[in-house]
């Protein structure tokens, strides 16, 4: 960091902690690690999450799941839209953080932030429409009313993209929760700060604690504990760049037949996402009922 001249104001620097159950704890391990910008300059110390932090995050996500999934789609829509409102209010902060994390020009960073906010708005509007688009009433050959509805899978552990620190992050998190799931997110290892700031946005947006939990740290250390955790129902491996690790995690996920989303190499995050990320963590429930007097 350049030394401050005597006439400049000494700033109050933020402490970057974990976001679990709606609160901001440090890692129970007491560890932290150095986060640098794209040019290797010191930005901050981030909490280095341990397996116990991951365990606590899963507890929080599991506890939040019944309430979150029971809310009406309209209610989730409004909460997610509120998050977009909060993000918009903090454009400048996020632009600065994304620029520093990814080594982007201010203008390119701002474009990323705009896209991230718009992405969030897009997903917000899905919350009350999934049943109409993905569900159906089915014309079975008998006197039965037969319908299929999408339902949330449960707790999803997600590894955020390593390089797209806000747009990519949002593109992974929003579809998970729009459908009623809760999640534990492992932020980009070397560029975690925008994710922690996102946590601050979530904490001020009426989003119930535990719906999204954000850990900062090493995927190789923490992800295996999430992949094998029997209270985790879905696994999003988007941000795993080590293909051997990805295979190990997929194998571990088989233990309780988690729904797995495989890693994507450098996707174009600006492209329209389609339904696949929401579908990945939605179940289909079919109900039959006789029709008669």
């Amino acid at each position, binding site marked *: 960091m350049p030394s401050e001249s005597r006439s400049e104001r000494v700033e109050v620097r933020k402490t970057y902690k974990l976001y679990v159950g709606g609160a901001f704890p440090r890692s129970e391990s007491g560890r932290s690690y150095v986060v640098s910008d794209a040019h290797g300059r010191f930005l901050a110390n981030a909490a280095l999450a341990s397996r116990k932090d991951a365990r606590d995050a899963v507890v929080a996500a599991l506890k939040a799941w019944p309430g979150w999934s029971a809310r009406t*789609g*309209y209610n989730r*829509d*409004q909460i997610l*839209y509120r998050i977009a409102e909060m993000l918009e209010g903090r454009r400048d902060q996020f632009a600065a953080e994304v620029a520093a994390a990814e080594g982007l020009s201010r203008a390119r960073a701002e474009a990323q932030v705009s896209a991230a906010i*718009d992405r969030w*708005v*897009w997903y*917000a*509007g*899905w*919350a*009350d*429409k999934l*049943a*109409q*688009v993905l569900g159906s009433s089915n014309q079975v050959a008998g006197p039965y*009313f037969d319908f299929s509805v999408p339902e949330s899978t449960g707790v999803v552990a997600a590894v955020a993209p390593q390089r797209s620190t806000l747009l990519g992050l949002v593109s992974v998190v929003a579809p998970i929760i729009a459908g009623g799931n809760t999640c534990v997110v492992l932020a980009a290892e070397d560029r975690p700060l925008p994710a922690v700031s996102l946590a601050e946005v979530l904490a001020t947006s009426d989003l119930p604690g535990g719906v999204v939990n954000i850990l900062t740290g090493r995927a190789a250390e923490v992800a295996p504990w999430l992949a094998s955790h029997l209270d985790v129902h879905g696994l999003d491996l988007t941000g795993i760049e080590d293909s051997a690790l990805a295979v190990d995690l997929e194998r571990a996920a088989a233990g309780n037949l988690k729904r797995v989303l495989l890693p994507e190499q450098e996707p174009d995050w600006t492209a329209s996402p389609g*339904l696949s990320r929401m579908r990945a963590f939605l179940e289909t429930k079919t109900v039959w*009922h*006789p*029709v*008669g*007097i």
Partner: protein
Amino acid sequence: MAVFEYAPAPESRAVVHVDSHYGLFIGGEFVESEDGSPFKTVNPATEEVLAEVTAAGPRDVDRAVRAAREAYEKVWGPMPGHDRAKYLYRIARIMQERSRELAVLESLDNGKPIRESRDVDLPLAAAWFFSYAGWADKLEYAGFGPDPRPLGVAGQVIPWNFPLLMLAWKIAPALACGNTVVLKPAETTPLTAMAFADICRQAGLPAGVVNIVTGAGDVGAALVSHSDVNKVAFTGSTEVGRQIAEAIAGTGKRLTLELGGKAANVVFEDAPLDQAVEGIVNGIFFNQGHVCCAGSRLLVQESVYDEVLDRLKQRMTTLRVGDPLDKNTDIGAINSPAQLAKIRELSEVGAAEGAERWSAPCELPEHGYWFPPTLFTGVTQAHRIAREEIFGPVLSVLTFRTPAEAVEKANNTPYGLSAGVWTEKGSRILWMAERLRAGVVWANTFNKFDPASPFGGYKESGYGREGGRHGLEAYLA
């Protein structure tokens, strides 16, 4: 004198400011009429004049359509869906922020109880904009092809029974799909539309996307027959709906209609009785019975007739009729002297045809337009009050013996908007739902609306659906 008298609990009028004069909202601002004339809008509970409004003339209508066309060509049509979405979200949010003010305004102009405007009309209107905002950038998922296009300019005419809500039902999907609109509110209830115009300005909605022309039936006729309107949407009486359909024949204009009804509310012997009674009361007395989908015919299974009627009458004695701005009022004023005359006339017909009339004793205010909640027993299918839409707080009670008979009687009408079914037996609910020729079937509930749920009629209750992805169809090519 009751043991527990509820003291007056008036909602304050101070929260809303009503201008003394309103022009027309064209091209993003309020403008004076070229060839129209002023008229007054009145508070039906007190008969006081609320404001002077402008009845648009033919040149005004033309100006409005031209403004809509220009906005469509230059701004709204080319605008990407995600940007249209953001304007609609803004409108939804502002409606939420200003909901108390809008609710009071609605009750003043329409006569409905403040509790209803506050708890039903406003939340639903905002929700409609919220939900359709989310469709604006997802049209390719709605089931109408990979790149659905808007129609152009929509001419929309709405009724006086749910002024702001009907405005939301019309404008939200139209704008979400990329159309621009010219809307005509009912002549007796223009004020919340005027407030909505202000909301459009606050939201920064581009000029000409929404235009509002006030006036009576002639203004509506001019609007729907204007040659540069691509799509017509009308909610109102079947009679006028028929006229519109005739008028636009051969023009290629798309048309959706949401018209009258004479819904049957069917109560079986195994209904959850107390909740069924609530459903009957809600079905016909909610909004003073000014509801197209009102459960105006009670079809009660003969074996539980006495029990249901006893409970119903007892329940009706706790309905509070009076000042719409009192938070404890259940039944407000009838919207206009014309409507009151119609309700009275048909009630006289009912008595003359031999049905037995009953109302709970209630004191009606001296000024304003009032009618007590009323039921007629001994009604049969052949009675006029079983066939004609009264559009007031008047319930006709008929009986039936078997499910098949209930279906037959329920369907025996040119209308087909809604129906109610009350029974604890799931299979019978579904069996009835399958056979009722009605666009909306409510089972063990009534008068439920949601922007995600398609609403509309069969037969002479109209065609087209509002709500859900189905509601987009009317506004897409």
